[in-house]
């Protein structure tokens, strides 16, 4: 770590402020993020996030490809731990511009896959969060479960991390024969593991001490910063795009929106945000069960895929609920083969921008907890 000493003169006494760089290579920044911490002793007086280390200008690629369908694999690489959700957001945006009818079977498969992805992403987020705070065992337990989801994805799409599975109008190929069986089996075995996680980590006294009352985000501030997803729900706001601005076929399913309640500390603290993710996994299981019941057994998943995408002039802002929050795609079409402008509104980018305001005055040791609790993925922040 690089340390700089600044001598600042107060009106009465002489104080020394220290600036410490947390990152870019720091295990608990979850990627290449550099935080400049201005410290007074152990108290964080100011945080200045420095981003851009992973910037490769996804938007420029998207504009220069000259083709709407070829953009999908690039969206995978934004939030690489929930690639399926990133693809879904993009293909839905294009489908809305095309006013395309999607076959029932495709819709159901998409919902099942993206809820599985949500669980996989939360497992990683929660596991890494625990790891940051010294809980090593839950991380290994959760990764075992995540592997099972990745196995299902591997059987389905051939890849374990970056899938390129959803295409405009359908899916790359049909799911394997035993997809339903595998998924049902996973749902059955995973449910008791959530209880195990709660016993092991959520209600662990040390864990509560490290996360309760830390990094409190009041609802009003959260809205002003346009927070979304588990971060906003952790502050007590019942807001989920799957219910409040439904896309795909989410309006057909019965599920709850877990919100933070200040159960072990202040409303909107790190523990609340963490717990919303745990409870969301339970709700995702409910959605998957209902979708497995409703999914038609027959149907061509590629029948609605357009051979060539030609769009008239116009634009759309389309948002979907990813594990991290509201992922928006702003797409402008100018009648050419590819998009004129694609802007990805990444939830991690927005959440990171409020880090200075929620970590002011906290202890340096708590910075790790706060960064972990907003669950950022740097690939998405930098795009």
């Amino acid at each position, binding site marked *: 770590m690089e340390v700089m000493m600044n001598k600042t003169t107060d009106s009465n006494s002489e104080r020394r402020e220290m600036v410490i760089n947390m990152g870019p290579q720091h295990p608990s920044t979850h990627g290449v993020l550099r935080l400049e911490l201005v410290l007074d002793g152990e108290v964080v007086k100011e945080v200045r996030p420095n*981003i851009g280390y992973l910037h490769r200008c996804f938007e420029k690629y998207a504009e220069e490809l000259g083709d709407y369908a070829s953009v999908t694999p690039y969206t995978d690489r934004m939030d690489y731990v929930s690639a399926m959700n990133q693809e879904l957001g993009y293909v839905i945006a294009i489908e809305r511009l095309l006013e395309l009818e999607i076959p029932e079977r495709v819709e159901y498969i998409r919902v099942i896959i993206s809820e599985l992805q949500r669980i996989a992403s939360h497992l990683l987020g929660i596991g890494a969060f625990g790891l940051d705070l010294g809980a090593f065992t839950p991380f290994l337990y959760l990764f075992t479960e995540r592997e099972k989801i990745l196995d299902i994805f591997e059987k389905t799409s051939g890849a374990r991390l970056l899938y390129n599975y959803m295409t405009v109008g359908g899916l790359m190929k049909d799911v394997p024969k035993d997809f339903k069986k595998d998924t049902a089996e996973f749902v059955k075995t995973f449910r008791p593991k959530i209880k195990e996680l709660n016993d092991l980590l959520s209600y662990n006294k040390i864990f509560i001490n490290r996360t309760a009352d830390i990094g409190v985000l009041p609802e009003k501030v959260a809205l002003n910063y346009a927070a979304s997803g588990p971060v906003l729900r952790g502050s007590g706001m019942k807001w989920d795009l799957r219910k409040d601005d439904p896309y795909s076929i989410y309006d057909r399913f019965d599920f709850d929106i877990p919100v933070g309640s200040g159960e072990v500390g202040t409303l909107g603290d790190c523990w609340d945000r963490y717990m919303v993710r745990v409870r969301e996994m339970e709700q995702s299981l409910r959605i998957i069960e209902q979708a497995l019941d409703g999914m038609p057994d027959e149907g061509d998943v590629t029948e609605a895929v357009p051979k060539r995408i030609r769009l008239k002039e116009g*634009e759309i802002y389309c948002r979907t609920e990813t594990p991290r929050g509201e992922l928006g795609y702003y797409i402008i079409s100018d009648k050419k083969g590819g998009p004129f402008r694609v802007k990805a509104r990444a939830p991690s980018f927005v959440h990171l921008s409020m880090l200075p305001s929620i970590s002011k005055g906290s202890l340096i040791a708590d910075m790790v907890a706060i960064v972990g609790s907003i669950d950022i993925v740097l690939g998405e922040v930098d795009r």
Partner: protein
Amino acid sequence: MEYQTGDIGEPWILVETSSLKPVMKTLRDDPQLLFDVLMCLSGVHYQKEEELGVTYHINSTSLGHKLAIKVRVPIENPHVPSVESIWKTANWHEREAWDMVGVIFDEHPNHKRILCPEDWEGHPLRKDYVQQEFYQGMPTGD
């Protein structure tokens, strides 16, 4: 102010730059509008018209409606008032729009690049952007 729409997709309202801030303030505070969330702010380069634009997507969580607002400015004088004082989230979005497209946001508290290094040349998302060959002596191409 002008209501405009494309052949497909969603409509938007084009606002004069000079009235942007009062319009946005009303949109946020009027009890019938209550747009409390700025979902997205995007800079756009309209090469043919030699203009830069900013699109604001706003949303009301209490009333459940959405709206798109646009401003357009000439490329040789791309000044747009900052809405950071209305929605804090605009801070980073505006820095990104400056970095990528080159829109200048007046009264922005920290008007710096965000994704590219501070001494990077040009704005990558301009349609006529040419990448610099060297950055601090290092070749940037492949």
